[in-house]
């Protein structure tokens, strides 16, 4: 039962983007189109699950004072290995996701979950937490990207959804559009929370 609640909390109640407000940099930068959002989200989910399990495994032997630098080394090494292995053996997948992988290292959701959850919980729950947070991240990223791609390009997942006479609102896919969309979505989330 605990496993299941750890898994679902990341999607709404403790949503990493809208509630915990972690990982803003990739959220703002990569939400220009839905396929980018999905690519980034899934790649980050994979790393999040693995790093959470890894951190949970070594939590007993890491001295408390230097845990953060050790987590960073573990996560960075892990991401680099995935990047190299993917480039060598899965070149097509690497072409699609390659640009997101170095960005994952600096995604603070990963370090945030390592510190806040994985270092205090067992491997199984840490895995559930990683999966839930990853899915929450992917979903929120896709929502932001959906709004930005439709307004800024007239397409969704590269399919034309608005009539071609629509003049794209370019600002939506530029940096200011990211801030505006994110701000409005957070406001909506807060209104919903207050009403409950």
């Amino acid at each position: 039962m605990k496993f299941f609640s750890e898994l679902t909390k990341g999607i709404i109640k403790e949503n990493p983007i809208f509630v915990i407000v972690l990982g803003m940099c990739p959220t703002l930068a990569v939400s220009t189109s839905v396929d980018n959002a999905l690519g980034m989200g899934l790649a980050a989910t994979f790393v999040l699950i693995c790093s959470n399990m890894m951190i949970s495994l070594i939590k007993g032997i890491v001295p408390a004072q230097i845990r953060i630098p050790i987590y960073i080394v573990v996560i960075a090494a892990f991401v680099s290995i995935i990047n190299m292995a993917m480039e060598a053996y899965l070149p097509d997948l690497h072409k699609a996701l390659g640009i997101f992988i170095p960005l994952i290292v600096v995604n603070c959701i990963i370090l945030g979950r390592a510190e806040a959850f994985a270092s205090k919980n067992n491997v199984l729950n840490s895995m559930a937490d990683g999966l839930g947070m990853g899915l929450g991240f992917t979903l929120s990223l896709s929502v932001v990207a959906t709004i930005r791609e439709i307004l800024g390009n007239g397409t969704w997942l590269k399919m034309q959804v608005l009539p071609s006479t629509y003049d794209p609102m370019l600002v939506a896919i530029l940096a200011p559009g990211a801030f505006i969309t994110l701000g409005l979505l957070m406001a909506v989330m807060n209104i919903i929370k207050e009403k409950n």
Partner: protein
Amino acid sequence: MKLYLKLGFILLVVTVIATGILAYVNSITAPQIEALKQEEAIKSREELIPDSIFEEVEVSPDFSYFIARNKDTEEIQGYTFIASQRGYSDNVKTMAGVDPDFKLTGIKVVEQSETPGLGANCTGPDFTKQFQGKTMEDLMADKDGGKIKSLSGATITTRAIASSLKQAIQTLQQHVQQQAQTIQEDAQ
């Protein structure tokens, strides 16, 4: 004091182990990655100038090009090269082919790490197709008076690609003409 030394030592051990693992993985994967890149380069060259055999000519350590000769007649079909210039976040490398009159036959962006959704769109056919048939004079972003339609929100990427191609074609043209001259002089 003793505690800090101990902590520093533990951190050292952790980083040494991590570095060792990374070096090991790199040594396994690097040749494989290099081989894939070579294969890809051969394929791209064939796409740009089909039915040719390629011969590499090195101009300087940073720039070399390939002469494409027809498989049967050995007539020069054109040249291919890789142009590189810093874009918005890192170097953008573009492989391009030109015909014997130095008109572009096509381009392919082979390496870039531009912003996804903006500059990264430079790999798409919507952008690369317009380079076909362009000469050196056309190779400027439309904002700067050239004939290359800029990517929306990514003028810097467009400029990097256009101007790197322009420079590369210039170097190539000079070198080819020089070569031709030396051959003529030798013959006399």
